[in-house]
């Protein structure tokens, strides 16, 4: 039971893998044609595109061998100048190796070692600062969150697992396991219900069967929650429109007004006039604001000073939303981990620690950035930046989808 057979993962992501392999076959066919027609000269950009597809596929199917090949190919390509390049034997070898590795993958001859996958997930959860997006930068211990795109690009060439990919891996693992459990769960509940139907109530087994039914329903509910979580993390771009951040914030504050009043929290807002609208999925942004302000309200429960300040203004090509509270602040060692899945400082039973993780995903899918600054005793500040350029939002989304998010 120590190995997750690749076949199981492939079964779940068959469609995506197949389309990536098809794309790679296309690219390889085009390359082969170029080689024949142009006597081994090919356009560098075609090679890059091929390497990019390989790289993307390694992120999706999580296969280190492909990652290694893609990495090696990219290294070579980085050194080449000019619009066209003579295909050297080692490039040709790498290109062919890449396709072979993927085909082997699909033939289910390879297995991924469960320990290996768990190790990678653990590493991602620990958030290695230098290689990760969304982890603490070692210079400013008080701030954490997404790095700007150009910083991200620098580390991704050698990245093993960034926090974003870590979330994707967790999501894949969860979905695959949940799916496997669905059939046996359905079987068990039906078998038990059948027995119940045919066991007289005065039979002492009747009550036991009822308990069995209950426990099975409990398992099903847990699996549903897991699946819902994995869906949340991989949801796409539906329902995008232009919407004002100020309007969303007002809506959120209004929906929380009962709690705000009950907790006797003072909320001030400072909205700039005439702010342009942002291209967004309003429900996702609403969910994010709701999550952060909800967390603030929880943080203020034990606080003497109960204050939340909300600012919405323009910052260059972004709308900047700042939410700060006068709560107890976040410990530096926890600050590194607040955006990670299942991280929570609340007592067991109160939330599972997915709120900020989902919020990070939401904002990043909009091409935005979310950061947090906090000092114990001095409160916490969240800053969200959302791009005004619609093309940037869409480009970020496509980039993430291509890199196997």
């Amino acid at each position, binding site marked *: 039971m120590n190995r997750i057979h690749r076949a199981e993962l492939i079964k779940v992501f068959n469609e995506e893998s197949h389309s990536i392999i098809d794309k790679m076959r296309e690219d390889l066919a085009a390359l082969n044609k170029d080689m024949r027609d142009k006597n081994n000269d090919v356009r560098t950009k075609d090679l890059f595109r091929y390497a990019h597809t390989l790289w993307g596929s390694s992120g999706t199917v999580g296969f280190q061998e492909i990652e290694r090949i893609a990495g090696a190919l990219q290294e070579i390509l980085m050194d080449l100048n000019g619009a066209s390049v003579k295909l050297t034997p080692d490039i040709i070898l790498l290109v062919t190796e890449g396709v072979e590795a993927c085909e082997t993958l699909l033939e289910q001859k390879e297995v991924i070692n469960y320990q290996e996958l768990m190790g990678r997930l653990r590493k991602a959860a620990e958030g290695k600062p230098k290689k990760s997006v969304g982890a603490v930068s070692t210079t400013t211990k008080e701030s954490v969150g997404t790095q700007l795109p150009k910083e991200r690009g620098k580390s991704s060439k050698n990245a093993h697992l960034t926090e974003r990919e870590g979330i994707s891996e967790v999501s894949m693992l969860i979905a695959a396991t949940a799916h496997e459990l669905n059939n046996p769960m359905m079987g068990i509940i039906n078998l038990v219900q059948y027995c119940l139907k045919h066991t007289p109530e005065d039979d002492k087994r009747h009550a036991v069967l009822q308990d069995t039914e209950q426990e099975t329903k409990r398992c099903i509910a847990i699996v*549903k929650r897991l699946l*819902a979580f994995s*869906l*949340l993390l991989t*949801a796409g771009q*539906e329902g995008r429109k232009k919407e004002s951040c100020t309007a969303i914030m007002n809506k959120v504050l209004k929906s929380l007004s009962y709690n705000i009043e009950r907790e006797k929290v003072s909320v001030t807002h400072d909205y700039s006039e005439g702010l342009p609208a942002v291209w967004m999925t309003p429900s996702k942004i609403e969910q994010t604001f709701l999550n952060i302000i909800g967390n603030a309200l929880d943080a203020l429960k034990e606080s003497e000073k109960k204050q939340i300040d909300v600012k919405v203004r323009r910052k260059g090509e972004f709308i900047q939303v700042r939410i700060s509270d006068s709560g107890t602040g976040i410990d530096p060692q926890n600050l590194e981990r607040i955006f990670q899945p299942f991280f929570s400082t609340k007592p067991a039973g109160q939330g599972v620690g997915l709120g900020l993780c989902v919020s990070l995903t939401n904002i990043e899918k909009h091409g935005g950035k979310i950061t947090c600054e906090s000092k114990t005793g001095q409160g916490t500040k969240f800053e969200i930046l959302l791009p005004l350029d619609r093309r940037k939002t869409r480009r970020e989304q496509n980039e993430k989808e291509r890199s196997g998010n």
Partner: protein
Amino acid sequence: MNELRIYLFLSSETPHSLMCVKNTRLALEERVGGQFDLEPVSLLDHPELSEERDIFVTPTLERTSPHPSVKIIADLSSIRSASAAVRLLLNDNEKK
């Protein structure tokens, strides 16, 4: 809040689904005139709603307002069957 709000959960947006929506709309108009808000939802597009609203099969009609909420699993492929479904949906006292 006496407004009549109804969700129609469908599998997808095929000609058949659109016909179900049309039949439901007609059946509702027949019973309550124009005083209703019917929102068709494709679960293919919004699978998460099945969990939120506890919808396990399509098509399902859910009346969310006025309370209490009622869910009817129905065949909506004809006006006759849609009318039967709507009657069940709007009548709180009717037992299975």
